[in-house]
């Protein structure tokens, strides 16, 4: 099912993949031109910093947005088959993993060409992908099941994603914000995933082992909770679709 969903999108062809890369490149160029000398001042390898941050955020935003709609979009599959419905959401999320893998590979390559050294910490990239996958998965499961019952979750989430873009340090460093804004940024799980990603890809820095393990455990725990929540509401899906 994952393969089928992947093949359905245009990313399964090289040309299709290039098209999907055009939007982020355009966005990144604008961010780079406007913020390089402002929020980007003092950040080493700012272009790479922007790229890695945007790739991770963009993956999260695109994956959760499409997973949110998958149960309703595939209404017939949801209501006429007897396999566990979380599989539909899980395969929707997994089908975008290959895209993330390619995007991170391209980011590393671009970083290398603009002078970012190649560190051993790059070997932790699969951990980064796995961590983002777990985070994206639990958010997607909750959104997808809620969308079956509440029809405007779609619009509400769209607004939340815009807010998330600004409270995630994509084009600025955490040090750039202070007070309550700093607290909000720190409480955002995506901030820590971006920190980890940039650390291993651009700066050759590994996170504090204990804190990082706690962060992973929290996300795995939340994944379990999301699965439980999904299964609790699953029997009522047919009442609304």
């Amino acid at each position, binding site marked *: *099912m994952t*393969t*089928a969903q992947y*093949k*359905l999108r245009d990313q399964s062809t090289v040309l299709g993949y290039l098209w999907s890369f055009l939007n982020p490149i355009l966005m990144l160029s604008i961010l780079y031109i406007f913020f390089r000398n402002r929020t980007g001042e003092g950040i080493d390898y700012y272009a790479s910093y922007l790229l890695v941050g945007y790739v991770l955020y963009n993956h999260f935003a695109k994956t959760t947005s499409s997973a949110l709609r998958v149960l309703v979009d*595939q209404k*017939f*599959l949801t*209501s*006429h*088959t*007897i*396999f566990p419905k979380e599989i539909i959401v899980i395969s929707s999320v997994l089908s975008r993993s290959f895209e993330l893998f390619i995007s991170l590979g391209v980011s590393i390559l671009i970083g290398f060409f603009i002078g970012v050294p190649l560190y051993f910490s790059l070997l932790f990239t699969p951990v980064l992908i796995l961590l983002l996958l777990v985070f994206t998965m639990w958010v997607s499961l909750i959104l997808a099941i809620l969308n*079956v*019952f*509440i*029809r*405007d*979750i779609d619009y*509400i989430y769209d607004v939340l994603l815009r807010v998330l873009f600004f409270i995630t340090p994509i084009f600025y460093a955490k040090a750039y914000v202070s007070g309550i804004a700093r607290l909000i940024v720190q409480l955002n799980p995506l901030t820590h995933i971006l920190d980890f990603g940039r650390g291993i890809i651009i700066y050759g820095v590994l996170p504090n082992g204990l804190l990082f393990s706690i962060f992973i455990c929290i996300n795995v725990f939340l994944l379990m909770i999301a699965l439980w929540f999904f299964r609790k509401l699953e*029997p009522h899906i*047919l*009442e*609304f679709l």
Partner: protein
Amino acid sequence: MDEAIITTQNLWREFPKERNRSTLFQAIRKRRNDKDGGTIIAVQNLSVTIKKGENIGLIGNNGSGKSTFIRLVAGLVPPTTGTVVSKGEIALLSHLGVGMLDDLTVRDNVFLYGAIHRIPRSEISQLYDEIIEWAELEGFSKSLLKNLSWGMQARLAFSVIRHIQADIFLLDEADTAGDVHFREKMKAFFRKQSNLERTFLIATHEMDFVNSFCTKVLWLHHGRQMAFGEPQEVLAQYKLQKER
């Protein structure tokens, strides 16, 4: 053969009258006020025992509760009250081809449809040529599903599901798809399968098929059991009621 494979006791299923997805605001308000828009009774007080190897025809007018009963047995919806117990692997064949995707090729759809019905990929790989041959779609492997007629799509879907290994087959008007030739092929398959002690529960409007294939018939009307027994007897009662 006397082993009960599906047992329902006082099975009751209601659905809310208003089944629209609410907005977040409405959801919060509804919970606070706890207002009830009323319910529709889809299945009421149904107690039946279906034995292993029986072929049950499920008949009744549209809206009589046939699909809900099938969904209750499949475990797709929980009962409001009462119980439904089934022993063994269930295959639900409701609306042939559900889950197949228009923009994928015939080949991709065979694997996808197989996965939806829990047929291992390795098995589909081995059976692929036979599936295409049975569906009479040789030479169409690379065609997109949307370029096939509905009859061809139904043949392809059915050709895949022939390989489901299940003890109980639940069919919700799946026998109405395709042309006469295809329907004959499909019925021949059912007859072959019923010899393997598989249990069939078939919701249908095709009375000839019920008469020739089913060992028992369950007639539902407004969710109530009107009759359950020998096909000829139940069909005669059903006909009489329809003529009134």
